[in-house]
């Protein structure tokens, strides 16, 4: 595999009972790029992310992360994962939460940097239970990147976040990507998709289309991504 590939998903299928959450998904994410997983609720975005982070063992197919085939506990040291809900300890302060995850990943410093990065350093002493939804989301992000992962997986990181903060977070993602971090982000918000370098459109557990936002638009022959998505999804349904 090329040094330039951060994540390689090869013909991955995952079934939950009769439901095929992933149905033969194959995709490659290059190092240092922001890759957007786009699709409606229940399309399989979260399942795909969870299989990349090793939480789910696929029924068939392979997942290779940073050159190592999963399952592999060591590679997880270099992966950051931000879950859909802000998974934090409500009884601990912001700083205590971030320090905890730093310790889990075996890094000493970096807590201050991470808190400054998400603009929570001045609120570091606040107990998480007292924070607003947006602050929790940022704290959760700080926990996911405190160990300076080479691959960052963000599952709908901007759900419930106001537009201004969303812009700020995306600015941060771009800075991280510029520093060489690979970011995979799932979303069903189309204007976020425009900010990704490449997109994967997912529906019914399948990859419908892949490419840069303009490539996806061109493929569908539409003016914007939303129309492109609806058109491509519609074609697949008919076929």
């Amino acid at each position, binding site marked *: 595999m090329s040094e330039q590939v951060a994540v390689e998903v090869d013909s991955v299928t995952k079934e939950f009972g009769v439901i095929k959450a992933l149905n033969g998904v194959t995709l490659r994410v290059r190092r240092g790029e922001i890759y957007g997983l786009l699709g409606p609720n229940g399309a399989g975005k979260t399942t795909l992310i*969870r299989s990349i*982070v*090793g*939480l*789910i063992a696929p029924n068939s197919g392979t997942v290779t992360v940073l050159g190592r085939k999963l399952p592999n*506990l*060591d590679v*997880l*040291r270099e*992966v950051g*994962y931000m*879950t*859909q*809900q*802000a*998974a*934090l*300890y*409500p009884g601990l302060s912001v700083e205590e939460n971030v320090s905890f*995850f730093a310790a*889990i*990943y*075996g890094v000493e410093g970096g807590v201050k940097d991470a808190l400054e990065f998400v603009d929570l350093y001045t609120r570091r002493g606040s107990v998480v239970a007292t924070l607003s939804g947006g602050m929790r989301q940022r704290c959760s992000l700080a*926990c996911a990147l405190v160990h300076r992962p080479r691959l960052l997986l963000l599952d709908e990181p901007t759900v419930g976040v106001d537009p201004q903060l969303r812009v700020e977070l995306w600015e941060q993602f771009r800075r991280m990507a510029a520093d060489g971090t690979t970011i995979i982000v799932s979303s069903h918000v189309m204007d976020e998709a425009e900010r990704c370098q490449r997109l994967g459109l997912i529906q019914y557990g399948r990859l419908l289309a892949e490419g840069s936002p303009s490539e996806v638009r061109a493929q569908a022959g539409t003016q914007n991504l939303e129309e492109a998505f609806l058109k491509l999804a519609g074609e697949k349904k008919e076929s």
Partner: protein
Amino acid sequence: MSGHRIAAITRRLLQGFRRDRRTLALLFVAPLVILGLLGYMLRNSATSAVGVANQDSGPLGALVASALDGSTKITTTNIAASDGDAKLKDGSIVAYIVFPSDFTQGAQGGVIAPQVHLEGSQPNAAAQALQALQSALATSASNRPGAVRVQPEVTYLYGGPNLDTLDYFGAAAIGLIVFFLVFVVTIVSFLNERSQGTLERLMASPLRRGEIVIGYMIGFTVLALVQSVEVLLFALYVLNVHNAGNVFLIFGIEALMAITAVNLGIFLSMFARTEFQAVQFIPLVIVPQFLLSGILFPVSSEPTWLQYLSNVLPLTYAVNALRDVMVKGADLTWSSLQLDVGVVAAFVLLFVVAGTATLRRRVG
């Protein structure tokens, strides 16, 4: 007040329960289990075994012995007086009564003086044996004229006449309290780890499952140990519960129970999705153990099939160990204590392994 709105709330409640089979089972099965256990234990419990050694050269000893034989309170066996203490120690009898060779002679002189040897650690059983003797004496001596004084010579293998019910239950209670509270706290907070999503995060980190379980175990054990010290000091110095053994040994057994409870909590939290369901484990796990572990009724007095059940519960061994130490003054040279402590330690190990094994599968 609107009847419709009230009806909507009632209907919503019952609709929810319809899909929650577990809660329904709890509501309708648990009462039968608990009442059933209690019923069988109270009604079918075996009577205490009492040994009788008749050395009387006269006829009275045999007369009283046969009256004892007919007692419904106890079951008698004929033994040699010299075997009595050994039988008390191994638990096969709770008391033995010796009618000395001058028993009849003494009665003729106006004093009835049987020798009663009590095991002493079980106040209820001792009381039953004494009552049975009393009524046996009343039956067989009633046809004797004249003033007869009954003067049994009572000796105790453990404890003494001052050992009361609290001394008996107190030893077990300090263990039960720690076990119960630690279990509840652990199961709820491990469940929170799951429901707030942090467990998923931990599973996506380089942490190993065993590290999570052992980390939890140590954290809760620290809390549990502080609690154990508090409970123990209160029992010993405020309630003055009798203690014939080493305080540090008691503490050690309590600590072992706490660790068992922590790991049982972690293990069982895998089978609950909500705090509500976790709390349901209390009637299913704690109450039967409370009834069957010998805290209220000695395991040996249970119907045989319940004894099998009692013998696979960790609390049974822990309660027995605490009583051995506090009432009987046992130390680690006693093989019975070694067995109890060993079994509890094995349960700890079993729950650690079981908790670790179920962790990965139940994340999502």
